[in-house]
């Protein structure tokens, strides 16, 4: 069962996850797997209802697909409590990595903090002393700033929370200009990031900007345009990562859907492959065995090495990428690894 966002705002992410996932399923040629896909409209209530439906009526064994942390929080605990497996292709709220972890919950993307921590590490490595940091005022935003601060060793010249869904950042940009910052870190997913980058670029402030990959994703970059060029961002995946699986994935995705794959597509693809690998070695009805098979993570990931930590969250390398223009298309080039075999701090709170 796949619950994901296919309509309304944010649908592009869900569509990428779905397309990536289905690509993997198709390539495997495995006919034992039956995928039911439903649209949650990005509404938690809807996601819960669909989960109920999938579990109660369609009797699915494994759930996946949710994009947003808040929807995951609504669905995952009750689904795992009912003995279903949940594989997260995106969204890794800290609650589910720490105290709320569950043996049947596997995150194939990242724990929410990971990319922010990588950004902090990158900023430190670049020798920035004074960062101005901002994020929307909601849990993921608060986690983002915490994550950055965890690894950033310089000072903060400012810390701002913006309104979720805010589209005008003139006021914040003015404050950045007025501050003594030597770098800017921001976490503004979706349209917020587009707005911020465009406005930031237009304001002639010449400060390096770092952010997690979400605002520099393939789907979004085209809407940001030149304003994004040169910006560093952190990601566990890049389309130019040098491994066979990835090259094949990028090529086949582009061929099938006529667009470059995004981070989300890669995550969907990996999630499907993880599931397929587990199905190959165990039967779902045997919970123990299936769980172990998942945990082994015996599949070829598009990001290269991939393993699960004690709390079933990834332990993986995180890269720094830079936005470039390839012909007419804006995309990312991977510069290097910033965190190696990175797990997350919440694992300590997890009883598994």
């Amino acid at each position, binding site marked *: 069962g796949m619950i994901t966002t296919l*309509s309304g705002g944010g*649908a592009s992410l869900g569509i990428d996850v779905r397309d990536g996932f289905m690509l993997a399923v198709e390539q495997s040629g495995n006919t034992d797997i039956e995928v039911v896909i439903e649209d949650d409209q990005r509404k938690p209530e809807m996601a819960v209802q669909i989960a109920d439906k999938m579990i109660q009526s369609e009797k699915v064994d494994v759930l996946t697909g949710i994009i947003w942390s808040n929807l995951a929080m609504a669905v995952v605990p009750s689904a795992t409590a009912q003995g279903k497996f949940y594989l997260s292709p995106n969204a890794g709220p800290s609650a589910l990595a720490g105290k709320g972890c569950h043996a049947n919950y596997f995150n194939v993307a990242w724990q929410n903090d990971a990319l922010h921590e990588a950004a902090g590490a990158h900023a430190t490595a670049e020798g920035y002393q004074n960062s101005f940091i901002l994020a929307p005022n909601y849990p993921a935003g608060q986690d983002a700033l915490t994550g950055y601060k965890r690894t950033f060793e310089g000072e903060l010249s400012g810390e701002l*929370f913006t*309104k979720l869904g805010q589209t*005008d950042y*003139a006021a914040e940009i003015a404050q950045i200009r007025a501050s003594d910052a030597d770098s800017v870190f921001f976490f503004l997913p979706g349209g*917020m990031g587009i707005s911020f980058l465009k406005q930031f670029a237009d304001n002639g402030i010449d400060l390096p900007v770092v952010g997690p990959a979400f605002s520099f994703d393939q789907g979004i970059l085209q809407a940001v345009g030149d304003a994004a060029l040169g910006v560093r961002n952190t990601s566990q995946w890049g389309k130019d990562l040098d491994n066979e699986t990835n090259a094949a994935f990028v090529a086949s995705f582009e061929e099938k859907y006529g667009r470059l794959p995004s981070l989300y597509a890669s995550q969907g693809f990996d999630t499907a492959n993880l599931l397929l690998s587990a199905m190959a070695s165990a039967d779902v009805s045997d919970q123990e065995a299936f769980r172990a098979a998942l945990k082994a993570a015996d599949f070829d990931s598009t990001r290269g090495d991939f393993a699960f930590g004690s709390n079933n969250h990834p332990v993986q390398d995180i890269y720094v990428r830079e936005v470039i223009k390839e012909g007419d298309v804006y995309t990312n080039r991977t510069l290097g690894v910033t965190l190696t075999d990175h797990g997350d701090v919440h694992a300590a709170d997890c009883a598994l």
Partner: protein
Amino acid sequence: MSPVLIAEQVLNGVQSGVVLFLMAAGLTLVFGVMGLINLAHGSLFMVGAFAAAGVASATGSFLLGLVAALAAAAAAGALVEVLVLRRLYAREHLDQVLATFALILIFSEGVRWVFGSFPLFLDIPTALSGTVSLPGGILYSRYRLALIATGLVVALGLYLLIAHTRIGMQVRAGASDREMIAALGVDIGRLYTVVFALGAALAGLAGALVGAIQSVQVGMGEPVLILAFVVIVIGGIGSIKGAFIGALLVGLTDTLGRLFLPPLFALFMDSSAAATVGSSLASMSIYVLMAIVLVLKPSGLFGART
């Protein structure tokens, strides 16, 4: 906090107020003047932005994009008025609310159907990009200055149109008694279509102008719509002047609230918590403003009715 920063933030407040005004003006026209509550006004904003982005990327001209935004929003507005809304003037507000709610659904998904789910790109025209320095050492975005100027011109033009022309009088007369104005020789049906299209065009213009500095995506209209409601409530329904003052008030309150509240809380809290709490309250500041205005003047600052 330096005076320059404050001055710059005031400008920002004015600028966001001006954009709100473009939205609110169309709404208040349609509301106050035609007695119609139009929740789909935000959709017209979105239509404008998408039309601008689509045409600008096809032709490479921002100006053509603006023209397209005006035309598309006006056309969408006129179409909606002719097909749906004109049957609802005589109905209760309730029906209008629901019908325009339905229109939002249709517009949002329709636009997504045509343009896909990914945000579109619309950039500031090169002539207006970058900053200018203003007296007092303020660096300010050229484009935003242009926005302010556009808003002021539109405000003035609208005010004159509604308050001082015969068309304006006829439209307002139609609001108070549609049947009667027709019986005195005015083609009120056509007039309303025109007014509605005008309101829509303003929303489309706002969408296009804002689209250049924000992301052009489905659902971009509703948050602005709700702010525009607040503006109208504060300013008084049907009053262009009220919409203007209300919009500036809301723009300034919002911007300055975001600037001052977090440091205010930082005086007695640690900075992270202050940032959270301060910005939580800042996001509610305009609603508090609205509540205060209401307590003092239930029909808004410039509203006619009690």
